[in-house]
């Protein structure tokens, strides 16, 4: 059983973690908290549909038991932007048609958000030529870093176009600042 103190913050609200130790973080979010924006595509860490941010880092929430998140800060798609108040990243997905059925989409967006943070922190990837240098933000880098998020509808090139737009806007904002 969960310790009475086991709690986590989800989208800024404090919640007691579930009693059943078998409950995954994904099922806790979807079933107990009603945050169904996070999707279950495989339940085995193979598709990325369940991607959420834990303390700012992306994880597959299906691969993690809820009780392991005592004291963690969890962000889901619901915290990134609502339908009538979309974030720039979500807007770019809409304008570039970075989805079709939409089932992989919250995972893609959460993953992309964290990936951009990783890029800005200078993380290397398997396709980076120089793992010590700041990464070049090429399409190849973006594809590599997003490859944990499957899209059976095949919206990949539109997703990359959406990410390029958001990254370019962010870069020009930095240049203006």
């Amino acid at each position, binding site marked *: 059983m969960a310790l009475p103190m086991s709690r986590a913050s989800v989208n800024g609200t404090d919640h007691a973690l579930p009693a059943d130790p078998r409950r995954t973080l994904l099922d806790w979010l979807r079933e107990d908290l009603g945050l169904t*924006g996070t999707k279950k595509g495989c339940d085995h860490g193979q598709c990325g549909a369940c991607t959420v941010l834990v303390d700012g880092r992306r994880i597959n929430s299906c691969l993690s038991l809820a009780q392991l998140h005592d004291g963690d800060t969890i962000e889901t798609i619901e915290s990134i932007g609502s339908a009538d108040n*979309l974030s720039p990243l979500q807007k770019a997905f809409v304008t570039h*048609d970075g989805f*079709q*059925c*939409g*089932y992989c*989409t919250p995972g893609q967006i959460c993953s992309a958000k964290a990936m951009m943070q990783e890029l800005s922190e200078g993380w290397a990837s398997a396709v980076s030529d120089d793992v010590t240098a700041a990464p070049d933000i090429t399409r190849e880098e973006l594809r590599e870093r997003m*490859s944990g998020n499957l899209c059976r509808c095949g919206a990949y090139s539109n997703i990359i176009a959406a990410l390029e737009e958001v990254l370019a806007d962010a870069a020009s904002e930095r240049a203006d600042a």
Partner: protein
Amino acid sequence: MSRTDTVTYDSPDTRNLLDHTRQGVIGKPLDRPEGPLKVSGSATYSAEWKFDDCAEGVLVLATIAQGTVQRLHKQRVLDMPGVLAVLADEAMTRRSTQGTAGEAPVQGVHTVDYFAQPIALVVAETFEQARDAALALEVDYVESKSPIALDPESPDAEVEDPDNSETVEGGDLEKAMHDAAFAIDVEYRTPGHASAAMEPHATIAQWHGDRLELHGSYQMLAYNVKEIADCLSIDPEKVRIIAPYVGGGFGSKLGITHEAVAAAIAARQLKRPVRVVMSRQQVFETVMRRSETRQRVRLASDASGKLIGLGHEALVSNLPDEEFAEPVTQATEFLYGGENRLLKVEVARISRMTAGSVRAPGEAVGMQVLEAAMDELAEAVDIDPVELRKRNLPAKVPVEGTAYSSRMLVEALDQGAEAFGWDQRRPRPCQTREGDWWIGMGMASAARVNMLVPAEARVTLKADGAALVETDQTDIGTGSYAILGQIAGEMLGLPIDRVNVVLGDTSLPAGAGSGGSFGAISTGSAVMRACEAIRTTLSEALGCDTDALDLKDGTATSGDLSQSLSDLLGGNDIVETGKIEPGKTAEDFSQASYGAFFAEVAVHAFTGETRVRRMTGAFGFGRVLNAKTARSQCLGGMVWGIGSALTEELAFDLRDGHLVNHDLAEYHVPVHADVPAIEVILLEERDAAASPLQAKGVGELGICGAAGAITNAIYNACGARLRNFPMTLDKVIPHLPDPFAEVA
């Protein structure tokens, strides 16, 4: 310009109404109206509806391929915490329903037809309890004493002529092959494919008295109602299905399947809502597969490359008594000439999960093989592969003599080639090397039959001048919400934000459903007809001929007459239901969407790994209803082509019949890193025979031949002529040239 249509579409509607309306929203690359819901996680998919007291069901699958279930050791499981029931009802489905069946599939879960067939449902208070109990359920089986073959090519496999395709025979193919200046006689193989829609199949069933309500993930609701009603022996009128958002289908959700029927039975027994979500592995193992194929292609040409004979014979498989057989030769019938021909499909009866429709049944595998064989012919004749295609476009469909409704293949070939830079291709293999990589280019034609199917839709022009479009049509990612709104907006002269589209509920008029690329044109035509009826009423109110009525931005105009719609409506709604059914145009014309693929690949000189570096597709499919969503359909299809060419393959263990790669870790769909920038060219075309919209289907066209272009590019890169899809490293390596030799 007026025209009295019966419900059936018997003669081409050449009025071309949508080019005379004035709103200017049809065809525009508008964003999907439901996009904000999808990107914010607030679109509700099947398993996500919340109902009080909902119990959780988990299916139990057979661990033998053929036999009977002798005993389920239920009691131990019923004693586990939270477990409510263990069901093995004879109404539960043993096989999945084929698309448009409208009736129950094979039922009864005491007999086992194939490995991993459902045999029971365990229901508990929570998912975790149900899952553990399902895992713990012990089952005694009696294995069949006379099992059928597990391998379609085994000599024991019974082979039949299928019911769903007819052999096409003309002239004398043997003689043509003998007389030909060039003759190609090759055998190709394609493996089984999985739809692998990203949302697993899920249903929440609940009964309100004798009425059944399902929230679930299905493609063709009007048919699904009949299927589940037939499974449960209840009146279809008593079933309602709600599915506003469907996380992909690609054929796997055409017909009702196991989780829906099991959930309904459990909910009836337990008198509470029951949810059954299939695991990813269960979806792979027991829903639906595209059959593997063995295809013999014979091409006989004269000295110029003109076909005088064409043979395409395929062996596919399915369970005994299933009507569906992958219609491999469907596009071969009309694509190229060669009057001496033999096109034939045979089906081997084997023990593997039901074979059925996976995106573009027939063409997806038939076209990739035909187009690979055409590349072999182009090489033999020594002409450009694009030119070979152009030389072989017949004036009428060979043997049958049917006229083409329209065909943009030459335009697709030319514009695709130009945009891609096909003239840079070096005709001989092994000519271009960049570091450790061989570089090559390949092309293929695209073709997919066009179908109009029965559909209804209701359109309400509200007193305030806004419109509501309602049908049970689903949007499985295809863009139904977008295009149905655009058709209504265009016909009624409304900006798109004045049109609301409500879908996916069987209490609404029955749309076509999503399948066979027919959803948009069929349901769209029904919407158009409903709007035409509204236009007639509006013109009467304004006092003009229907033909002289102009509708734009909520104002009706005709000559000097002009009135806002809300004034004209005088506080009343106009409600019309539009209907369409296929008619004589379907028989009088050969209707298909066409296109061309161009691909550049890099093949690693040492490892044989293939990377697709870029791809161009050019497509002609009648009127483009929304340039953004149509383009996405084409893109998605081409991504499937990459998967078919390089990675996707269902692998069955021939000792016991189990599917070895039953999840997304082992069945490799393309990921971001596999997909380059893809260029899509949409060719504007009008095809009045196809639909009053002048539009044809596009949802599947992008896959139909795409893998052939990649295969041909592999050959052009490194000289490996492979005839066994997918082109994995192990198959490429033995054919690679000496990596250290000088490039010629």
